[in-house]
């Protein structure tokens, strides 16, 4: 077990090193200056977080006072319990579907092959995930503690509250949430490892379902009570159980006794988790969680495209039957391929993109000032550049297939962007026409310029992708993405017609805006075609 403890400790310190490396701290450097840098980091981030949470506290106090005047404390308790309940249910569903104990590929070949006591393994492996999941709750508790402190200072007329008063109130709120969170976390893990140990069969589900119910009911009733819902009297002991614990953190109630009892409950739940792990199988857990860990590692090292591809592969499953096979030939093959692929990639983020484009269309009608419109165009260009060039990047990653087709580069590029661009024009027009119908004023200039604006964004983005493409990488399926700079240029190109429309009112503005959009859009697309031909 010592070896396991050593391996896990190394993983924990590597995890910490990863986060510290983001702020350029190297834990292996034991020089004095590096230690001073660590001290500086601790002080800097303590003050930074304090200021951020204080800012949230101010906004939070205003919001609580506005939404729940006179009952800010109850609202804060209800909010905290609400977040806890949502997290509990989400985490519980995840834990029931696959092992909560996650093992990496290295663990699978090293740790999971050893004859270790499953209970000790689960207990040792639970520490880091618990701490990581606790952090957001600590921040929430401190922010709410600060918010309630702000409310009470306002009521008491304290104009300049001292620093320590805030710190004490924040810490008090944070300390209380720790055992509560521990209990919820351990319960979720207990359910997960129990169910996995019993192969997720029939009666094994009774234990986790009962646990979810008995933990979920006090949480739910606590939320209802906190938000002022009057419940039957006999439910009082359950409904007030958790709010009373959290109230102690916000200054009402005996903190010491609450902490003692809640810590005992927390530790008992941990014991329950350990007892549930008797039949836990580490190798099976590794099979279930290796994908998740690989995706995490890939994402950390910047290979988010690969993560997306892996997820797509998993989502698509093994096979599909093409129902629609038109007799189109030539470049139209790209349209068919695009339609087929799009139909298989509709998910929430795809719909969110379309909704954003609809919102931008609406925004161009309702935001009259130039500065607001420029910010809108910048946001739009950022999202549109990725949306419009997705297929192009995919085709580049299939370089051998793409390069062997007897089609002109401009035909390939234009047909490849046709569907996404057409969809964007359609959605943008719907937004503008919808906005026009609501406001009674149709933005003719923007409507006319929209296709050209989209051509500008896709042209600039495609140009950047082609310029950064290297055949050696394309042959192994790696196509580059857009850059921040290209998004800025795309936004600038797309923004020119909007600026013209805003500065030159009337028909003149509409005509000049349209001409500018056509000229810029065409130039951008031509530059992209040229860049494609020179990929080396």
């Amino acid at each position, binding site marked *: 077990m010592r070896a396991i403890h050593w391996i896990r400790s190394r993983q924990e310190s590597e995890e910490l090193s990863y986060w510290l490396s983001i702020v350029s701290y190297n834990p292996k450097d034991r020089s004095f200056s590096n230690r001073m840098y660590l001290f500086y980091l601790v002080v800097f981030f303590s003050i930074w977080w304090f200021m951020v949470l204080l800012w949230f506290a101010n906004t939070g106090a205003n919001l609580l006072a506005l939404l729940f005047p006179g009952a800010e404390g109850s609202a804060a308790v209800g909010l905290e319990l609400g977040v806890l309940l949502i997290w509990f249910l989400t985490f519980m569903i995840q834990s029931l579907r696959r092992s909560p104990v996650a093992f990496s590929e290295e663990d699978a070949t090293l740790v999971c092959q050893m004859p270790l006591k499953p209970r000790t393994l689960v207990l040792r492996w639970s520490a880091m995930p618990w701490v990581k999941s606790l952090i957001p709750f600590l921040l929430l508790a401190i922010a709410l503690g600060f918010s309630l402190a702000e409310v009470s200072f306002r009521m008491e007329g304290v104009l300049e509250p001292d620093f320590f008063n805030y710190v004490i109130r924040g810490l008090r709120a944070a300390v209380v949430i720790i055992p509560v969170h521990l209990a919820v976390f351990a319960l979720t893990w207990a359910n997960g490892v129990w169910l996995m140990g019993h192969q997720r069969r029939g009666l094994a589900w009774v234990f986790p379902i009962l646990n979810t119910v008995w933990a979920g009911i006090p949480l739910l009733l606590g939320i209802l009570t906190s938000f002022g819902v009057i419940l039957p009297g006999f439910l009082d002991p359950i409904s007030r159980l958790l709010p009373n614990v959290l109230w102690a953190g916000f200054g009402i109630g005996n903190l010491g006794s609450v902490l003692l009892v809640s810590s005992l409950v927390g530790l008992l739940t941990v014991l329950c988790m350990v007892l549930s792990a008797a039949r836990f199988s580490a190798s099976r857990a590794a099979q279930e969680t290796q994908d998740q860990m690989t995706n995490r590692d890939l994402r950390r090292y910047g290979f988010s495209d690969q993560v997306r*591809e892996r997820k*797509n*592969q998993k989502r*698509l*499953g*093994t*096979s*599909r*039957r*093409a129902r629609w*096979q038109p*007799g*189109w*030939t*030539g*470049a*139209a*093959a*790209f349209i*068919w*391929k695009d339609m*087929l*692929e799009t139909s*298989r*990639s509709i998910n929430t983020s795809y719909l969110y993109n379309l909704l954003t484009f609809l919102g931008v269309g609406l925004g161009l009608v309702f935001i009259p000032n130039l500065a607001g419109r420029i910010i809108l165009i910048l946001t739009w260009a950022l999202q549109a550049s990725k949306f419009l060039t997705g297929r192009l990047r*995919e085709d580049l*990653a*299939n*370089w*051998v*297939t793409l*390069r*062997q*087709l*007897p*089609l*002109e580069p401009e035909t390939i590029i234009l047909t490849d962007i046709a569907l996404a661009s057409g969809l964007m024009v359609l959605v943008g027009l719907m937004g503008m026409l919808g906005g026009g119908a609501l406001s009674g004023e149709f933005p003719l200039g923007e409507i006319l310029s929209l296709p050209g604006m989209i051509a500008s964004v896709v042209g600039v983005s495609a140009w950047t992708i082609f310029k950064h493409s290297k*055949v050696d990488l394309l*042959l*192994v*399926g790696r196509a580059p993405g857009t850059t921040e700079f290209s998004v800025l240029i795309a936004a600038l190109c797309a923004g020119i017609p909007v600026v013209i429309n805003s500065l030159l009112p009337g028909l003149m503005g509409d005509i000049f805006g349209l001409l500018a959009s056509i000229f810029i859009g065409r130039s951008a697309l031509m530059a992209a075609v040229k860049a494609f031909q020179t*990929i*080396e």
Partner: protein
Amino acid sequence: MTERLVVTDLSKRYGNFVALAPTNLTLKAGETVILSGQNGSGKTTLLSCIANLVRPSSGTVSVDAFDMAISEIEVRKRLTFVPDVQHYYVRMTAWEHLRFVAMANNVLEGFDQRAELLLRELGLWKTRDHFPHNYSRGMKLKLSLTLAFIRPFTVLLLDEPTSALDEESVEILLGKLETLRQKGVSILMSSHNPLIKQQFGDRHFLVEDGVLREI
């Protein structure tokens, strides 16, 4: 016999490194040429440059008298390349890949029968509706071959086509190549397979440090 493929002074440099020294090669109709050489000797670079997947540093390639630099589309209609490792679209099945290539090459007539025959021959018929990312390496290579064979061509370039194939599939492939050769297709193939090196090919070349030498 007519000259199908003419490669003149074709070379590839990466900075100071010469991946392929200026190379001349001519393939007549129905001729099969085998390339051999150690890993990294320049076989794949030569094939990729001929197929214009990698831009050569100098030289010209012409197929059936069409120059790649002038009439690329005409060359593309006549030349096909099968790499040793190919990437596929994540959201398209094997059958859809075939259909896409046939559509883009304007050869949809009789597609269903031709595709079925090819897939059956290479043992992919049962898994035609599978996504290629679920295929084994050998199956991916077979799909790559069917993608090449589904369209008409006069010059066929193959990069290690037997590297991931089982013995039975190698036999089938060699039979297929023999039929193509009899139809006048010129084949340029790199291979480490001793069977191919001994029994197949009209001429043999060795690639050493980017230099092509007939053996």
